[in-house]
């Protein structure tokens, strides 16, 4: 191979380029003057120069985190606008604003001011709807971003801390969203708070105290709205912004991961510099996200609180549902059976509520947060990883992710069991029973199916590398035989299919030393060995040059060859053929 240098294309092309730098225009000189003044006082030229040259790789999925970031900023901007008119008070007033159906109705100041923002403040409804849509978009984008990071293995060393920060951000975003949509004090959000009070009571020993402390006495009280307001506009945003800054700071420190491909290695970043390309692309993208949210807010009503009426503990509307991101927790509450509540020692254990309402979210995020550490322990992999995995190349991880996603999906569907029953004309009891079973049955099936799909895709990758593309051209040989011509892949296309690492289960010693003493860590190592087998025992490894050579030699039939174990005597490795079979596993 003549292509040992890894940065051939761009560097060589640039080397031939004529310098296009024009002499600075008069305007730029002025900027230089201001910049010079600033640099004299801060020394900012060096870090800013470094940042401007920083290279970011390009891939559509890297925009997901950007969408989340911009949605959060849009929430901050639109939220600040709303604080100028929203009155966080549960004080009762009689409505006399411009929305006729509510005239004369007694309501809280929070509700009245939200109705006023919607009808009496010019542009208020638009900003309110932008705020709500941006919040939904924020959580959608960060969730999908999280999935991208998970399925591509971007959480691996050295990015575990950032993954944990991301998990906390994601969890707090849910709480922030819940606090936000509870503020207008309409019938729907009040019912949500009513349920939240029930959740708090389910905590063993201190439940009723917790409820009284949070609500400053009996539900609903007058304290919860101002308290939630302070949490929603000050406490949580401060934490979210702080964690977000750390999150993005670590991205700069680590440099962004990149997808594998020709020229991309674990030691470089191939992409475009911040100045000017990403400044324009990312800056422009902020306006695109904002514009799309404005368009949605202009055309699609969200949370029409004026239609629900003010909160009253007695009435309720059918089809009460939380915002989408709380759906899974609400669904869990609908699936958990009543027998999980019981009395013992004269006290009430309300696990039918507590598991779904109090434990589910921290447990779910806890599991996600520890996953990188678990995987690292199982694989024993201490290297830094900057190249992303194609999801198919780690079938077990991808399968586990899909299993988790399926469990989440079942809970999410469960939150709509009443809607499904009505729309589909089914029995709500049947739907609930089926979803209860599905919560346990569906994730293992999803794991198995996903893993098989990944393995099949890997086999197809091998097949493509070994035999190339079927051209559809039939060739007749001199002795009258027919065969279809296969076109070998070019080296760039092939590289994507063979670049990944070989996976093999950890080889563990017996755990007993020569004196027959069992190692104190033997049991732990045994678990580790079993998990390692679970991850990698049926892994399919990339085509090696020797395999390709053998396949070329033998034409169509021979797909894989395997070397005999190397011995130090230097004996010739034996080759073994396998027809349409993956290589045998050690």
């Amino acid at each position, binding site marked *: 191979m003549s292509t040992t240098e890894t940065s051939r294309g761009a560097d060589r092309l640039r080397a031939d380029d004529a310098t296009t730098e024009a002499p600075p225009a008069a305007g730029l000189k002025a900027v230089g003057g201001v910049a010079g003044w600033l640099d004299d006082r801060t020394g900012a030229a060096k870090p800013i120069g470094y940042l401007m*040259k920083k290279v970011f790789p390009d891939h559509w999925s890297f925009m997901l985190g950007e969408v989340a970031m911009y949605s959060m900023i849009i929430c901050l901007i639109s939220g600040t606008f709303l604080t100028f008119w929203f009155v966080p008070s549960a004080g009762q007033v009689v409505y006399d604003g411009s929305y006729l159906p509510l005239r004369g109705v007694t309501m809280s100041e929070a509700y009245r001011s939200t109705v006023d923002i919607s009808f009496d403040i010019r542009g208020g409804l638009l900003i309110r709807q932008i705020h709500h849509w941006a919040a939904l978009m924020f959580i959608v984008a960060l969730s999908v971003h999280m999935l991208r990071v998970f399925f591509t293995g971007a959480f691996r060393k050295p990015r575990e801390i950032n993954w944990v920060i991301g998990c906390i951000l994601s969890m707090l975003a849910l709480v922030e969203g819940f606090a936000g949509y509870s503020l207008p004090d309409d019938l729907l959000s009040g019912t949500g708070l009513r349920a939240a009070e029930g959740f708090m009571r389910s905590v063993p020993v201190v439940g009723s105290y917790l409820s009284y*402390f949070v609500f400053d*006495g009996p539900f609903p009280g007058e304290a919860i709205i101002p308290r939630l307001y302070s949490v929603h506009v000050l406490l949580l945003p401060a934490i979210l912004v702080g964690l977000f800054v750390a999150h993005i700071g670590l991205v700069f420190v680590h440099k962004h991961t990149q997808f594998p491909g020709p020229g991309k290695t674990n030691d470089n970043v191939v992409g475009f510099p911040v100045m000017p390309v990403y400044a324009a*692309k990312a800056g422009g993208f902020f306006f695109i996200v904002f*514009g799309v949210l404005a368009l949605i807010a202009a055309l699609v009503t969200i949370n029409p609180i004026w239609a629900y009426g003010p909160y*009253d503990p007695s009435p309720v509307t059918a089809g009460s549902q939380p915002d989408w991101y709380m759906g899974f927790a609400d669904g869990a*509450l609908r699936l958990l059976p009543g027998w999980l509540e019981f009395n013992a020692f004269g006290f009430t254990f309300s696990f039918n509520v507590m598991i779904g309402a109090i434990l589910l979210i921290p447990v779910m995020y806890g599991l996600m947060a520890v996953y990188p550490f678990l995987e690292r322990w199982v694989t024993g992999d201490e290297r830094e990883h900057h190249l992303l995995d194609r999801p198919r190349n780690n079938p077990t991880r991808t399968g586990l992710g899909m299993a988790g996603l399926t469990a989440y999906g079942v809970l999410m569907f469960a939150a709509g069991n009443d809607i499904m029953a009505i729309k589909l004309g089914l029995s709500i009891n049947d739907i609930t029973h089926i979803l209860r079973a599905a919560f346990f049955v569906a994730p293992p099936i999803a794991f198995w199916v996903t893993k098989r799909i990944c393995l099949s895709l890997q086999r197809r990758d091998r097949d493509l590398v070994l035999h190339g593309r079927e051209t559809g051209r039939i060739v007749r040989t001199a002795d009258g035989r027919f065969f279809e011509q296969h076109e070998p892949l070019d080296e760039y296309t092939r590289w994507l299919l063979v670049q990944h690492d070989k996976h093999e289960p950890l080889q563990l010693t017996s755990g007993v030393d020569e004196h027959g003493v069992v190692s104190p860590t033997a049991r732990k190592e045994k678990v580790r060995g079993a998990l390692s087998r679970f991850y990698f025992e049926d892994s399919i490894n990339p085509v090696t040059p020797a395999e390709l050579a053998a396949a070329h030699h033998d034409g169509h039939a021979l797909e894989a060859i395997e070397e005999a174990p190397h011995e130090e005597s230097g004996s010739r490795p034996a080759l073994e053929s396998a027809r349409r079979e993956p290589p045998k596993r050690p």
Partner: protein
Amino acid sequence: MSDNGTPHGEVVGQDSDAYGATAVRLDQGHIEGTGGLPERFENPGLPAHVARMADHDEKAAKRAEKQVATLFGLSSLFTIVFVVAFFAIDRESTAFIPGIGRTSLYNVVIGVCMAIALLGVGVGAVHWAKTLMPDEESVEYRHTQRASDEDRRRVVSELTQGGTKAQLGRRPLIKYSLLGALALPPITLIVPLAAGLGPVPKDALSKTMWKKGDRLVRDPERTPIRADQVTIGSVFHVLPESIKDSQHVLEDKAKAAVLLMRLNPEDIKPQKERDWGHEGIVAYSKICTHVGCPVGLYEQQTHHLLCPCHQSTFDVTQDCKVIFGPAKRPLPQLKITVDSEGYLVADSPFREAVGPSFWERGHA
């Protein structure tokens, strides 16, 4: 094989008869050893750069420039339209928009103007970047995150030296008292917060404002109900009459809301339910025993009560026991009777706590 750049070994005695027929064994001499083949393929490096139209065609570049400028211009234009519409359009006016229905014209127009003003900048900037800014990939090199061994040693030694200089090791009294001094002061913030947040519930969760002789009144009209007004199959949302004197209407209502239904007395199975009612008229707490939503849906034919929040279903013919859903306990029944004027009144307060479960519920 070399034409596609495959690194390969020396193939000895290639036999076309072997095509598709027999397995190839390296030790049979077809390939020399491992054939000098590497363990893995090598990274071929970045593919050659493909120039864009705008890179070599000034006309295309000019076109791109015009497109970007148009988008930016559109943005400015719609900012102006936004301001005009903001003041010119009547906020009460509505319009029919296909696919959406009748909606506020004001909100749609200013929203769409805002969206175009923002999208113009955004799409323009991205288009500019994609067509005219350099699109040759740059390569930046990474370094391992860990600092050099020397740096790490220096930091550790500076830390330990700092500790030594401060005599941390030699003065255990300071060390341990410092731990306490750092750990405890936050309590001065936590205690006032915890103590000031709210009162202690005592037995408030187990009590409602219902008391013996309290008339049942309609919610929200607050008119008393005569037994003969309650026909079979009807349902009333009910509050205690004393709610009119309440200082905390919402809080009292959140516990005292009651549903009143009349069933055919033969349909009622438990004797207790019949005894606590009046000629088939029964009253049950409306607050769900799951997490406290109002159990608002009454199915007249089956006499089932359904909570719309999590679909707990209670059977009124069986003392409101849970027949489906996540709730565990039946809805508490309010014992009722009629007073001398024929109005329905409570015969006693609730005998158990209403609403969601809590730890000390059994001690009420």
